[in-house]
Every structure is written in structure tokens, then in C-alpha cells.
């Protein structure tokens, strides 16, 4: 484009010599036709350049095919809803598996579904240590065989203000902890995700301190709602949702639900957790869903249920107050957010 303004009619080199029968500088119809074509070309190029450039910079392609769609069925029959299940409409599988926060695979919601294919979930071992009488490293398949699989349809509320209804499969964390026989010094549980930048490309950037760690108070961990998921909607958990083993604590914001767990440690000290470390004024250790305590940058009073047109009121403890509010008696939830 740079040369165009200085170019003048008749300047065209080669035109006269190559095609002497055309006299471009003087023949009016030829000039105006060329002028028109020139303008049309520049117009099109500019539209494409500017429009295309803006699209390239800002448009986020969506509709990544859910990588877990072909996941093997876990061979279970749907049972009637249990006492912990919500009867609310389950979020479509397509959306639950393409709209994920899993920074190990990228920062965009669609990144995990696109990039999590590089995660190998077998063989997989989970190290269990700390204040337990039976520390051990256990193979994932063995761990899975210890417990009968249960279904749990839970609400999931992200700290960003959106929510889903997820049909998890797995086992209560309490069953695992009891089996490990915690010592008297155990007060907290720390969870650690896989740290392997070769399998988790997002870990090549230092956006968070890797590996991702999360924690619960022991009484929270032993609560019957607290769940270890290894399946979703009757199929093995898709990688982007935290395969092969993840934590689900339905009354807490979603970031407490640590994914792709490789280590579970019982501790006497409160564990340092990833988001509380990254932004202590915005994300706390407890992270209980609380419509009365706003995030500094947005209100937590309402949420958008994925797939719905208008917002919903957010409920204290994400609607599980009856079951869990007693755990926090006497605790100032404004300070301990």
C-alpha cells in the first residue's frame, strides 16, 4: 500500500512496451476501468485485512468437539435420584465438556477440550501420605475397585459467576480417608494435581504456581457430600474435566474441585492452596459459595446457569446450607471467604 500514493497515471512501467496497442495514460475508458478495478481491489483488500485482522485477534472459535465423547461407558444403569442429588436439569454433556477452567491446558474455556488429549490417564498412580497409618502409592484401577461407584447430580458454581448441573460418578472422599486410617494429628487434607508440562502444555507458562494444590479441613473432607469423581454422565471422566480422578465439593466454588489428582496428603497444618496464593484478596481457603460476599470485581449475588437466558439467585453454600452450614458455626464467613 505504501507505494500507491506516489504512483501516477502513466507511471506504469512495462505496460506500453508489453502491449503497445493499449494507450493507458490517454485512453479514458481504459483508465477509468483500471481506476475502478484498482479501487475495488484496494477496497476488498482493506475490508479483508482489517476485518480479518480484528477477527483473528478477538474471535474465539467455539464448538470444539468434546474430546471425551467417545469415552468408554462405565457400565452403570441410571438409578433414581438419591438424597444428595438435585432434580434440576442436567447441563448438556457437550457444554459441560467444552466450557472448562483447567489452566493446565490453557486459559480459554475451550482450551481444555482442545488440548487435554495429551494427558495420559493410564497408568496412573495416586500417592497417599502424611498423617495416615497406611501411607501408600496406589494404582488408579486398584483405587477405583475399592469402592462401589455412586451417582451424584450436583450443582457446580464457578467463582466467575456461572453454574452447571453435573452428573458425577465416583465415591465419597470419606470412604477413602477412613480406609487410610488418619492419625490423631490429621486436621487437613491436601490434594496435588499432576505436574508434567509435557502432558499439560499450560504448565509451561507461569500463570499459576504449579502443581495446582487444594485443601479441605478434615471435617469438610469427611462430609458425605464431598466426592471423588472419576466419571461423568455414565462415562469415564473426560480429560478436560479432570480425569482420571478429581475432587467435587458442591457447596464451594468450582476452583476447589482440583483435577487430575496424583497425591492426597493428610496434614496437621492448613495447606497453601493455589488460587489463595495467586490472589489472596480475591480467593480464600474456604471458598464457600456465598451470595453475600462479593468478589472484588463482580457481585456473587446471582449466577448464569449455562444454557439459561436470565440469571439465577445464588444460594448460600450453593443450596447445600442445610447439610453443611453447621460446619462453619461461629466462623466469620466475611473474613473467611
Amino acid at each position, binding site marked *: 500500500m505504501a507505494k500507491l500514493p506516489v504512483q501516477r497515471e502513466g507511471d506504469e512501467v512495462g505496460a506500453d512496451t508489453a502491449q503497445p496497442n493499449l494507450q493507458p495514460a490517454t485512453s479514458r475508458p481504459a483508465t477509468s476501468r483500471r481506476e475502478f478495478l484498482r479501487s475495488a481491489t484496494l477496497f476488498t483488500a482493506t475490508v479483508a485485512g482489517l476485518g480479518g485482522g480484528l477477527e483473528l485477534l478477538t474471535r474465539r472459535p467455539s464448538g470444539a468437539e468434546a474430546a471425551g465423547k467417545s469415552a468408554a461407558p462405565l457400565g452403570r444403569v441410571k438409578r433414581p435420584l438419591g438424597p444428595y442429588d438435585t432434580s434440576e436439569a442436567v447441563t448438556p454433556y457437550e*457444554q459441560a465438556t467444552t466450557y472448562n477452567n483447567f489452566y493446565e491446558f490453557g486459559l480459554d474455556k475451550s482450551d481444555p477440550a482442545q488440548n487435554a488429549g495429551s494427558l495420559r490417564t493410564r497408568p496412573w498412580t495416586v500417592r497417599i501420605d502424611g498423617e495416615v497409618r497406611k501411607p501408600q502409592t496406589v494404582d488408579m484401577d486398584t483405587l477405583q475397585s475399592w469402592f462401589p461407584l455412586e451417582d451424584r447430580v450436583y450443582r457446580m458454581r464457578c467463582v466467575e459467576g456461572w453454574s452447571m448441573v453435573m452428573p458425577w460418578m465416583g465415591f465419597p472422599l470419606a470412604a477413602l480417608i477412613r480406609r487410610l486410617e488418619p492419625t490423631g494429628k490429621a486436621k487437613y487434607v491436601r490434594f496435588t494435581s499432576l505436574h508434567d508440562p509435557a502432558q499439560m502444555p499450560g504448565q509451561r507458562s507461569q500463570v499459576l504456581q504449579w502443581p495446582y494444590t487444594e485443601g479441605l479441613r478434615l471435617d469438610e473432607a469427611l462430609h458425605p457430600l464431598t466426592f471423588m469423581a472419576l466419571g461423568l454422565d455414565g462415562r469415564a471422566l473426560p480429560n478436560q474435566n479432570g480425569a482420571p480422578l478429581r475432587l467435587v465439593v458442591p457447596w464451594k466454588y468450582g476452583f476447589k474441585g482440583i483435577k487430575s489428582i496424583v497425591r492426597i496428603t493428610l496434614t496437621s497444618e492448613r495447606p497453601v492452596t493455589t488460587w489463595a496464593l495467586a490472589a489472596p484478596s480475591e480467593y480464600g481457603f474456604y471458598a464457600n459459595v456465598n451470595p453475600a460476599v*462479593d468478589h472484588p*470485581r463482580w457481585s456473587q449475588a446471582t449466577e448464569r446457569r449455562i444454557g439459561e437466558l436470565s440469571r439465577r439467585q445464588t444460594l448460600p453454600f450453593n443450596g447445600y446450607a442445610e447439610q453443611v452450614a453447621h460446619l462453619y458455626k461461629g466462623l466469620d464467613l466475611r473474613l473467611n471467604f
Partner: protein
Amino acid sequence: MKPPGRWNWLVPAVSVGGLLPAAVLAADAMRGVLGANPIKQATHQTGQLALILLLLSLACTPLRRLTHWPWPARIRKALGLLAFFYAALHLGIYLLDQDLSLSQMAQDILKRPFVTVGFLALLLLLPLALTSTPRSVARLGFARWTRLHRLVYPAVGLATLHYWWGVKKDHTGPLIVVLGLIALFAVRWLWPDKRKRKT
């Protein structure tokens, strides 16, 4: 100052190209391919478009000083108006996200600095968009009009702050904007306007 015929295509091309993302966004929304949280997606995209176009409009003068090309000055107004268009769309979609609740929006503006600065940036752009016609220049007089249009600097500063505070963790995008702004102002400073110096 009518541009000569050779440049007739330029402003229409910039306008059409600049509106293209809005058309694609609308088409994506109607086809339902904006992902699981379409409103959030549309909010983010229109905000980014507004800021990019604002930066492009601010790049026109430095580019002209560096290259002496005539065309950057001709598209500055179109780029500025496009930026305002996307900023207004951004606010509209945010309002839609609040179920069109003006009281919720007012609360957000008063309580959350992140929203406050974004709203202020749009507010500062409003008089600029309203006085973008040649008639406004004539009515205000060139000196006053120029002074008024310096509001674009606080506006772009506030918009950048809004973007910076708005991202959850990864500040790459806002950082690129800040570096771009620094580069633009560096060019202005290193290549001062010669015409102005003489008078």
C-alpha cells in the same frame, strides 16, 4: 477537505471491515455457536474490539508523522467511531448479562472500580462521537474541538485499566495494549508535529 477520487474507497472499506466482526458475532449468536456462555463471549469480544480500534485510531497520527502517508489521517474518524460503536455494544451486552437491570448496573458502577473505570471511559468517548461531524468542528472552532478531543487520552487510559483489572490472571493482553500505548506516545514525542512547532 474532500479526499481526491483515488481515495474514495478508503473510508467505506474501513467501515465495512470494522463492522465485519459485529456481523460475524451476530451470525454466530444466531447459529448458537458462541460456546456455552455466549453473553460472556460477546462481552469480551466487543470490549477487545473497542480497545483495539481505539488504539488504531490513536496510531493514525504517529503513523502519518513517521511515513508522511496521507491515508492514516483519513481513516482516523472512522476508526474512532467504530471504537465507540463497539464500546457501546459492550455496555449493552453487559447490561443484557445483568438481565437489563439498570439498578444492578448502577450498583456495579458505584461499587466496583473495575466497572467504574470502564463506564467512565465510554462516557468520555460519548462527546467525541457526538462531535465527529465537520459541522461540529466548525461550530466549536478547531482549537476548542481539538481540546475536547484530547479526552480520548484519559478514555484510552481508563479503558486499558478496565481491561487490566478485568482479566483473572493472565495479563498478556492488557500488557500488549500498554506497550502499544507507550510505543505510540514515544513516536509522538520523538517525532513532534513540525507544523505546530513553526506557529
